[in-house]
């Protein structure tokens, strides 16, 4: 009990010293991000607000290309020993470099930590410590054409039945002109992972010692995906393209794509609806996507690290995560944000957000295994082969399991 008190006291001292250090002199921090032109003004506004509140801190925003480019750059910078102060990171990027990060959670109040929505606390916790904090988070939801789908499907069976019903060869030339649904298996294997979660399945066992993707739950998920294949447009392009071309009636996609999907629906002259993903055999969970924020310990002064933590905490504030969500199509990441009047008003006036918000609170994140990126690629390949009928669900999962097994070593 006494040692705990000392620990808490020690942490508070470090925390206060950090704040004092930040408050003392000017400090410049770099923030590496992968936000495209549509999000940059919003991010800049938030950073400007932060700098107005902490005038001694200068934040240099640095765009680092897409997520793949950003990951390469972080890896290179870690090896070279000159990482930025703060950067956007995916969960699995963090696992191999967790030792050179400055755990944000150790410098947050209990209230702040408890405010982060539960599904996101788990995915930002490494070795029992909240190391990173959620930032630009989106959730998989069902988009549908209101004229063709008056009531969206609520469970797997309805989704399958409606997909079948809506798939038509209108000119009778033997080629399907309108698909009930659509998939981008190679680009978006998260759709399979969604199904997998809804069966209660997983890629790996809890302790990462065994591959479980090919067990009965995995097979159930893949068989369900395969049953949708005849009524699905399988493409590698953005689904919004097919939506605009009236080729698909409904599809599951990230909430971050709302802007583009809605534009596509408007261009096609129809109204778009958003619903939760159809309920699976076990639950109605959906995959949370997007990155978190990591503060680097390496090559940073104490003042820089403290400023990085301050920025991360600033971005978690209800008003800021709500602003980020409203402007960018992402979802708030804290409970207080969902309960805020601002967000409630926003949801009340933006019908599509109701499903997104509800889904977000029932979301799951990717696993933290350092080889998740490679596993994702393996799953994407198997998922695509099954959806293109090049492999049976059993074959697809068996080959994926073998390759994932190698990635565990």
């Amino acid at each position, binding site marked *: 009990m006494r040692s705990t008190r000392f620990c808490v006291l020690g942490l508070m001292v470090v925390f206060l010293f950090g704040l004092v250090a930040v408050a003392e002199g000017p400090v410049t921090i*770099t923030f*590496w991000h992968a*936000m*495209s*032109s*549509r*999000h*940059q003004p919003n991010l800049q506004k938030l950073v400007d607000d932060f700098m107005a509140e902490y005038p001694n801190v200068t934040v*240099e925003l*640095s*765009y*680092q*290309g*897409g*997520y793949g*480019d950003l990951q*390469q*750059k972080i*890896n*290179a*910078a870690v*090896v*070279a*020993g*000159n990482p*930025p102060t703060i950067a956007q990171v995916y969960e699995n990027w963090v696992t191999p470099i967790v030792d050179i990060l400055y755990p944000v959670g150790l410098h947050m109040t209990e209230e702040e930590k408890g405010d982060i929505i539960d599904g996101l606390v788990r995915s930002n916790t490494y070795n029992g410590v909240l190391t990173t904090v959620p930032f630009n988070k989106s959730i998989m939801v069902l988009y549908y054409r209101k004229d063709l789908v008056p009531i969206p499907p609520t469970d797997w069976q309805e989704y399958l039945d409606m997909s079948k019903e809506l798939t038509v060869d209108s000119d009778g030339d033997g080629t399907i002109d309108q698909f009930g649904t659509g998939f981008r298996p190679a680009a978006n294997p998260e759709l399979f992972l969604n199904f997998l979660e809804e069966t209660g399945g997983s890629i790996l066992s809890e302790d990462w010692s065994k591959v479980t993707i090919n067990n009965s739950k995995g097979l159930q998920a893949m068989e369900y995906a395969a049953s949708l294949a005849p009524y699905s447009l399988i493409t590698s392009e*953005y689904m*919004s*393209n097919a939506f*605009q*071309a*009236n*080729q698909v009636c409904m599809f599951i*996609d*990230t909430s*971050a*794509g709302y*802007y*583009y999907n809605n*534009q*596509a629906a*408007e*261009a096609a002259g129809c109204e778009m609806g958003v619903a939760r993903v159809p309920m699976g055999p076990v639950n109605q969970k959906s995959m949370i996507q997007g990155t978190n924020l990591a503060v680097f310990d390496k090559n940073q002064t104490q003042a820089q690290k403290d400023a990085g933590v301050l920025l991360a905490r600033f971005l978690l504030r209800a008003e800021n995560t709500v602003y980020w969500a409203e402007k960018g199509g992402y979802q708030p990441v804290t409970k207080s944000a969902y309960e805020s009047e601002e967000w409630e008003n926003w949801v009340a006036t933006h019908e599509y957000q109701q499903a997104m918000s509800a889904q977000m609170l029932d979301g799951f994140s990717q696993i933290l295994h350092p080889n998740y990126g490679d596993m994702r690629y393996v799953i994407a390949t198997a998922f695509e082969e099954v959806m293109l009928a090049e492999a049976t669900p059993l074959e697809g999962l068996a080959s994926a399991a073998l390759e994932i097994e190698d990635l565990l070593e």
Partner: protein
Amino acid sequence: MNSGYLTKESLLRQHTYRLILYLLLFAGCAIMLLPFFWMVMTSLKEESEVLRMPPQWIPKNWQWRNYLRAWNVAPFGRYFFNSFVIAITTTIGEVATCILAAYAFAKMRFFGKNVIFAILLGTLMIPGEMLLIPNYVTITRLGWYNRYEALIIPWLASVFGIFLLRQFFRSIPDELQDAARIDGCSRIRFLWQIVAPLSKPAIMTVALLKFLGSWNAFLWVLIMTSSESMRTVPVGLSLFSSEVGTAYEQLMAASVLAIIPVLILFLFTQKQFIEGVARTGIK
């Protein structure tokens, strides 16, 4: 019938042949130009028209403001300046070093020449991606990170350029060199006054390929720089795309602006470029 005159039939045949030839050329030209036409037209469309099916070739309302919006997304003025500085300096530098090295490999005798050349060619087989992290570490330790040195100095030599010019220089008869040496011409003078002018098409090919490569370079610039003041046009173009969608009309507007300098360069050098490609057998 006088063989010096063409009959009506043969004239007609000749005209028909020409007509077919021109039609084929026109069709080929149209196919080649179609992506450019699509790019320009898309740059002037409204967002909702971009992916419309069936495709809408000509915009309803020409959106010239797409260019302004695209230009304002990032400091493109600075990006263009950087692209020019880097493309021009690396092109001049690479051509100079490649000429010297290619001459040595083609016309000089020295110990281990073929082995060194084979090692150089071997480096072409190492994927660039594999070297990215080691190169980043090297650049950082040299203190060149986020500086022009990182974007220029590593690109002042090229094995491909050396190989290309060496092949060309080897086709120049050794007798020319012997005659020049007998007349008291130094190697360097022979290189600049005889070999280089004779190899103009090949040198122009190396220069143009280098300029294009530098102008389009994306990953190296992105990795080796962090501030906007050091970035180039291709990095600016990537801003219009994200994981979930692309602002095509703005991307196309910025792309139109980005290809103008390359287009102008090609218009002025196309004769040498095509000649160089034809004579060196590069495909």
